[in-house]
């Protein structure tokens, strides 16, 4: 039986961004459970804990103290137990170079942080809806690339 909610995790050192993010998910149609972490070290410690429910989608800020989003991405991609997690890069930067580099290193989604709440809600809702289709229809995650 499939669970009827989607597990979401965000790792971001900016408190305001974390708040907007959780608020946005409270207002979208699909039921989600959102967890946030302040940096990459806390995130990876949590993901490596036995018995936890892994997220369906993981949002990674690129610039975080202690462990960056790219380092997290590399560690996640090296561990098979994380294969089912869709990785979304959630960043203020939208340089073509950053975008392509993270896709090549295994990210599925690249989101340039929207500047207004309405757009944020729309983007997050679309990400979760499309991820839901991949999840429920056993579509090939390898081809899952999405950019906002």
């Amino acid at each position, binding site marked *: 039986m499939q669970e009827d909610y989607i597990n979401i995790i965000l790792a971001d050192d900016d408190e305001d961004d974390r708040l907007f993010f959780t608020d946005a998910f409270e207002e979208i*149609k*699909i039921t989600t459970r959102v967890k946030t972490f302040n940096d990459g070290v806390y995130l990876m410690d949590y993901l490596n804990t036995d018995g936890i429910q892994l997220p369906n989608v993981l949002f990674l800020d690129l610039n975080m103290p202690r462990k960056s989003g790219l380092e997290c991405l590399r560690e996640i991609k*090296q561990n098979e137990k994380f294969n089912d997690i869709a990785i979304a890069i959630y960043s203020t930067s939208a340089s073509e170079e950053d975008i*392509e580099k993270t*896709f*090549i*290193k*295994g990210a599925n989604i*690249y989101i340039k942080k929207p500047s207004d709440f309405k757009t944020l809600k729309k983007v997050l809702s679309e990400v979760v*809806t*499309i991820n*839901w*289709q991949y999840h*429920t*229809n*056993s*579509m*090939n995650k*390898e*081809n899952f*690339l*999405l*950019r*906002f």
Partner: protein
Amino acid sequence: MTLFFKFDFNAICQIVLEQTLNDNDIKFKTVGFGEIELLNKISKDQQDKLETALSKYHIEVVENQKSILVQKIKDTINDMVFNEDTTVNVKSSVYLSDTLGHSYGYLSNLFSEVTYTSIENFIILQKIEFAKQLIIKQDLSLTEIAFRLNYSSVAHLSTQFKNTTGITPSAFQRIISKRRAFNQENN
């Protein structure tokens, strides 16, 4: 050396299903794609065993009537998009409602309610997925892919690809091949 494969998803699913049923000594008659009629009553125990055997292939028994119809809508769409032998000359809304025997309004409301997306968006998503597979295989040009997927022009396919994924077909092809090279270096 690299080998590329072409799959007939419907045929694979049907074969797996029939083999598993036979392995479990269940007598059945195939009614349609993804639908069988049991010829003898089966015990709860047998059904559990069958469901466990099928879960290995991510095949699930659909129980709720709404889910059954949604699954039929998805199967019909996948057949329309992926199966080269199914040519659909009418609008997909007409095709779906004729094939499934319900009004399109009913189907489309039910679909959105259960899947969080509309039938139109689901069709686009599946067509773009198919386009991705063909782009990766690299043996068809974009013009041929557009024709195969019933787009009126390459421009139309490219625009829909970009609108759906946020990237162009050529960027997609470049990223996937660079990613494969990257994965090979790191394994």
